[in-house]
Structures are given as C-alpha cells and as structure tokens.
C-alpha cells in the first residue's frame, strides 16, 4: 500500500489494509462495522472478488441503545398497568373473552402470549395492513382509515389518499404497471385461457404456457432446465423437503427467510445455523460436520446443503457468493441459493447475484427465485441441472398437491423476462436495470450523506434505515404518511430488540423527483425525530475536499 489515500482518475480512494484470512485470501477488512473486500491497487491478485464489496452495519452510539431499552421497559410497565386495569374492570375490554358459561374451563390461550401484541403492537397498529386500492407502482392510492378507539377497531372514511409515493413495494424493475400496451399479451392470454388452472402439475395442470415459461427461465438464467411453481413461499417450503431428508445436514444462514426455515424444518434434516454472511462460521461448521459426522453414530452425512439468500430483505446485505462457492467446492457440499429479492434487481443485465459476482450458474447447484419481486407477478422457480429439475417434477410436494401457476400470470412473467432479455426488440429491459442501479446508488449515497445509519451492501435496492427506538417506529411511519409517502417499518420481535428499522425498496420506476421528494421528507423528519446517528457520514461536497488534497500533494 504505497499511498494510503491515492487519488485515481479524480476519485478519492481509501485503501484499507488487507487483512488476510488464514483460510481464504479474500482480502476482507472490517473496520468500525464497515466491511470492504478490496482489490489491491486496482488489480485483482487472486482474490475471489472481482469488484469491491462494501457493506455497512454501523452501530449507533451506546446512548441510543440505552434509550431503546428504556423505551421498551416503559412500554412493558404501562402494558402491565393497562392489563391490570382491564382485568379489574377499570378499563373497557375490547378483546375477545371467554363466554360466561366457559369461565371455569382451562383457558384456550395463555394471555401472556399476546402481551406484546396487545400492549405494544396494537398502539401503532395503524402503520401495518394498510389497504391499498391501486396498482403498487411507484405511486399508489391508499384507502383512508381512521380509528376512534386507539387502534382497536378501524373504519374506512370512504376517501382515498391519492398518489402516495411507494417506498415499500418490491417493485424493483417497475413491472407492476397497468399500461394497456404493456399488458397486451397478458390480456390476450387471459381471454384465451381464462384465469384458473384447476389442477396440479402432475394431473392436468401443465399448460403449454408453463413449458414455454420454464424454457425461458432456463435460458434467462443460463442453466439446463427450470420448473415454476404457483407460490414463492411454497417453492421453498415444498421443495426443500423433496431435496433433503433425515440423515442430511442443512447449514442455514442466521437471517434466512421463514420459507427456508419452514422448508428445512419440514424436511427432517439436521439444521445448523451459521452467523450471517460469516464465512469463518460456515467453514467451522462444515469442518465439524465432516470430521464428526452425524451426532451419535458418527456416520458420514448423506448430504450437506448450504441454504443462503441472494439479498437478505431485512438487512439489505448481499451473500458472499464467491467465498461460499469456493468453500462448497472444497468441502463437497451443495448450495441452494434463494434469489427472491436479487433476481432482476442486481447484476449487469438483471440475472441476479450469480451475474453480479461474475460467476457461472454452474457453480450453484440449486438456483431458486421468485417472480413476485422484480417481475410483478406471483410464483417461484427452481432451476439447475436437468436431472435435478426432473427429480423435482416427480417428487416435489408442490407438483403433486398444489395447483400450478395461472396462465395470465405466466404470460406476465414471460413478457417481463423477454423485456429484460431484450427479446421484445427494445432496450427497455436493460434501461430498467440501469435505472434501478442508478436509483439505488443515488438513494443510498444521499442517505449516507445526510447522516442516517443504513444497513447493507451499496448495491442492494433494499435499504433498511435504522430507527432504534420503539416510539420512533410509530412516529416515523405516521409522519411519512402525512407527507404522502408510504413506508414499511418493522420492530421487535421480527428484528433484534435494539434494531427497529424502516425498510425502503427502491424501484426502477421511481423518478429522480420522487426520490428527491422522499429524501427531502427524510431529511426533515430525520432532524425532527433525531434519527441521524451516523458518525461516519461522508462529506456532502467531496469534490472540494479532493481539490485541496491535490494542491497539498503538489
């Protein structure tokens, strides 16, 4: 490292010291919660990463954590107080109670299990389950909903709030649209096939549309064959039990989605969890599994499969695919990659994390993804070698018991995929991918400059903004709605107790003006609610800083 702050091509680069892992020469350095995988002096020297991999997981100052805990404690104490008042009749009971005749029966539910829902979730319940009444494009309409008794019941006033900017829908490429020209083929197919399939894949539910779609998905991903299913969640939960069973080992990431966890538990295999995106943890688990074998008999595992996701939707982090592939090749394990959020959203032409890292789809054994996020449809796919997909066609629970995807939805995916691949004769697909990339970078950069704490990879369109305190969850969501922006907020227990967040999903359909509106609103709200906790915000005017450095170096 000759010059720690070399200026290359007019951009200021900070080359951190490469910390060599004794296991993998990936050059990952971690400083203050910011992880970077760097190339030395711009030339790849045998590292598995072909471009920089920058992820941020900054920790807020300690006083923020203390206030968060105090907030939850105060909420809990008031919860106990209100429960006491409700039990002794000092306050009206809105919740369902056992009938008079059944009061001496053993209770159906333990009421402590609803403590959190009753006393903390309910108070800010108006920020979730908001009914929308238009297509979830970059802007949408909300039904106006008010409550007279502090969120116990809601009523609709009949009015709609129009043109709320949508920062919560997984509409990464903007295919959730109602433009008649775009949906022309979908309407034709709807008139030809109707809406329902009325059968499972193995009986009479395999249409020529499905065959066409599967061929297209296989071509899109660059694999031999693919199979599509009607529901994205069910793709995971119904197919993992078909692939692994008792005597197999599943190594699953800490932050895997419920569908993967459910599929893993349904399969009956042994599940071991490794720390999120932590390759040392994964390697240790792999080594222990191979050295010690199954728990009591010490026989070899029948199969070892690693379950990871492309983009983790709560953290916004991208999987470290090159390292996982080298680990899997070294220890002979299988890899199942769930690209629910990353297919269409990352990669130079939208083909997911495999393309993002410049790897070949042959490196991953099972490629799984959903069509709900970037393609504006519903359903999921599993792709890979022909043998694997043929096996799933016969053995998957979904193929035998669940109805197949309905034809208009299949046509929507076909037209979206053709648009992405450029087969419809336009460059619209590529433009959408580029626009998403630009929007993502712009949004993240601006949020960093403003001083918010953002989690995740710099290239991921999922942007979690940390709110920390439980009171701010409700305040943030409500005030954003007043400014006509719809956001998704999430708190404990879906996230760790001190890390409540708001999650933004950037879309290719967002224009620069919409993003600027959102950013200005966030700026105001950040000052008002004191959300700008970051201690490492970049300067808002890097060009000026750069010029002065140039002069000094002269």
């Amino acid at each position, binding site marked *: 490292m000759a010059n720690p702050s070399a200026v290359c091509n007019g951009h200021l680069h900070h080359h951190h010291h490469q910390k060599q892992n004794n296991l993998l020469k990936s050059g990952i350095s971690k400083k203050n919660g910011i992880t970077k995988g760097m190339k030395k002096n711009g030339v790849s020297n045998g590292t598995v990463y072909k471009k920089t991999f920058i992820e941020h997981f900054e*920790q807020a100052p*300690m006083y*923020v*954590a*203390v206030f*968060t*805990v*105090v907030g939850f*404690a105060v909420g*809990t104490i008031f919860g106990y107080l209100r429960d006491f008042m409700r039990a002794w009749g000092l306050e009206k009971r809105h919740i369902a109670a056992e009938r008079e005749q059944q009061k001496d029966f053993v209770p159906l539910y*333990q009421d*402590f*299990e*609803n*403590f*959190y*829902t009753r006393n903390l*979730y309910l108070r800010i319940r108006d920020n*979730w389950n908001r009914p929308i009444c238009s297509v979830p494009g970059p802007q949408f309409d909300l039904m106006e909903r008010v409550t007279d008794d502090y969120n116990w019941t809601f009523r609709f006033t009949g009015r709609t709030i129009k043109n709320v900017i949508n920062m919560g829908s997984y509409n990464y490429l903007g295919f959730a649209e109602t433009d008649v020209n775009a949906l022309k083929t979908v309407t034709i197919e709807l008139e030809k096939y109707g809406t329902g399939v009325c059968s499972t894949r193995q009986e009479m539910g395999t249409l020529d549309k499905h065959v066409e779609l599967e061929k297209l998905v296989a071509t899109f991903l660059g694999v031999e064959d693919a199979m599509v299913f009607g529901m994205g969640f069910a793709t995971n939960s119904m197919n993992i039990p078909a692939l692994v069973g008792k005597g197999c080992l599943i190594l*699953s990431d*800490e*932050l*895997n*989605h*419920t569908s993967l*966890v459910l599929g893993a538990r349904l399969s009956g295999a042994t599940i071991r*969890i490794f720390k999120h995106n932590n390759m040392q943890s994964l390697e240790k688990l792999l080594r222990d599994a191979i050295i010690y074998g199954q728990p009591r008999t010490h026989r070899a595992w029948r199969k070892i499969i690693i379950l990871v996701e492309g983009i*983790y*939707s*709560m953290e916004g982090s991208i999987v470290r695919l090159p390292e996982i592939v080298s680990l899997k090749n070294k220890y002979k394990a299988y890899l199942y990659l769930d690209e629910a959020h990353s297919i269409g959203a990352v990669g130079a032409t939208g083909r997911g994390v495999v393309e993002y890292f410049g790897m070949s789809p042959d490196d991953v054994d099972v490629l799984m993804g959903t069509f709900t996020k970037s393609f504006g449809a519903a359903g999921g796919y599993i792709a890979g070698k022909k043998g694997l997909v043929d096996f799933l066609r016969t053995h998957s629970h979904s193929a035998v018991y669940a109805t197949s995807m309905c034809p208009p939805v299949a046509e929507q995916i076909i037209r979206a995929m053709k648009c992405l691949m450029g087969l419809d004769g336009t460059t619209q697909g590529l433009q959408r991918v580029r626009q998403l990339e630009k929007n993502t970078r712009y949004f993240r950069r601006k949020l960093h400059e403003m001083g918010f704490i953002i989690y995740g990879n710099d290239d991921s369109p999922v942007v979690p903004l940390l709110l920390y305190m439980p009171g701010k969850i409700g305040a943030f969501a409500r005030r954003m709605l007043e400014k006509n922006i719809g956001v998704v907020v*999430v*708190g*404990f*227990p*879906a*996230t*760790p*107790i*001190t890390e409540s967040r708001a999650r933004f999903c950037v879309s290719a359909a967002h224009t620069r003006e919409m993003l600027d509106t959102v950013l200005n609103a966030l700026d105001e709200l950040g000052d008002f609610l004191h959300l700008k906790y970051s201690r490492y915000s970049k300067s808002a005017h890097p060009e000026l800083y750069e010029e002065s450095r140039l002069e000094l170096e002269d």
Partner: protein
Amino acid sequence: MNVGTAHSEVNPNTRVMNSRGIWLSYVLGIGLLHIVLLSIPFFSVPVVWTLTNIIHNLSMYIFLHTVKGTPFETPDQGKARLLTHWEQMDYGVQFTASRKFLTIMPIVLYFLTSFYTKYDRIHFIINTISLMSVLIPKLPQLHGVRIFGINKY
C-alpha cells in the same frame, strides 16, 4: 409483525439480555431507583439502601423467576411456555455472560447495602434473606425445578 419472520431465532427472548445496551440500562435503572428512594425525606440512608436491595431483588424475582413464557407467540409450538425467563436465557446454556452478570449484580448490591447499613442485625437478616431468594433460583441444579409445584403451570 411476526416472530421469526426475518431471522431463524425461534425465541427472541433468549437473546434479549445479550443485546447491546441492556446491561448499562439495567445499572442505570438501579441507580434511578436508588435516587428516587433517596429523595423521599423521611427515609434514612440505611433504610434507603435496604429498600433498594429489597425492591431490586423482588423485581428480579418476579421478572426472571416467576413470569413464564414469552410475550409473543413463538413458532416452536410453545416450548418455552412453562419456562421462566431465566430458564429461557440462551436456550438453557448455563454460565453465559448475561447469566453471570445477573448473578453478580445482586451480590454487589448486597455488599454495598451491608456497608451502608453498617452491618446492623435486622437489616442484615432482611437483606440476606432477600439475596438468597434471588440467588438460589439461579443455581443450575434448580433449572426447571418447581418446589411444591408452585408456579408449575
């Protein structure tokens, strides 16, 4: 708003005491309690310290060793419904950092209280009984034990 939607932690209650800021908030909470008690004009200093010790131990006993289950529904079909929070911590693994911290805190408070009450006999008896009531349930031998069936269901 579901437990376990975004992570595979089946019971988040097990990790609450390891979260960032909890230990500091706990100590600050005891400090706040002490200051509030000190502000009451007709309590002498030894009485205030004994009261702090008693209230702290009583709250700890209630929240860690009496209240059972989780305040939210967990996806593991209620494995933790009959377990107190102490038993749920770290899924029952003994001698973790949080368990040691929560064992040492009442002992430290006991030392301070004994000093400030000048080792008076009555205060000593009260404080020692209170300390025992909060230390004995933390022994690993008493994991899951319900004496005389109290608090079993």
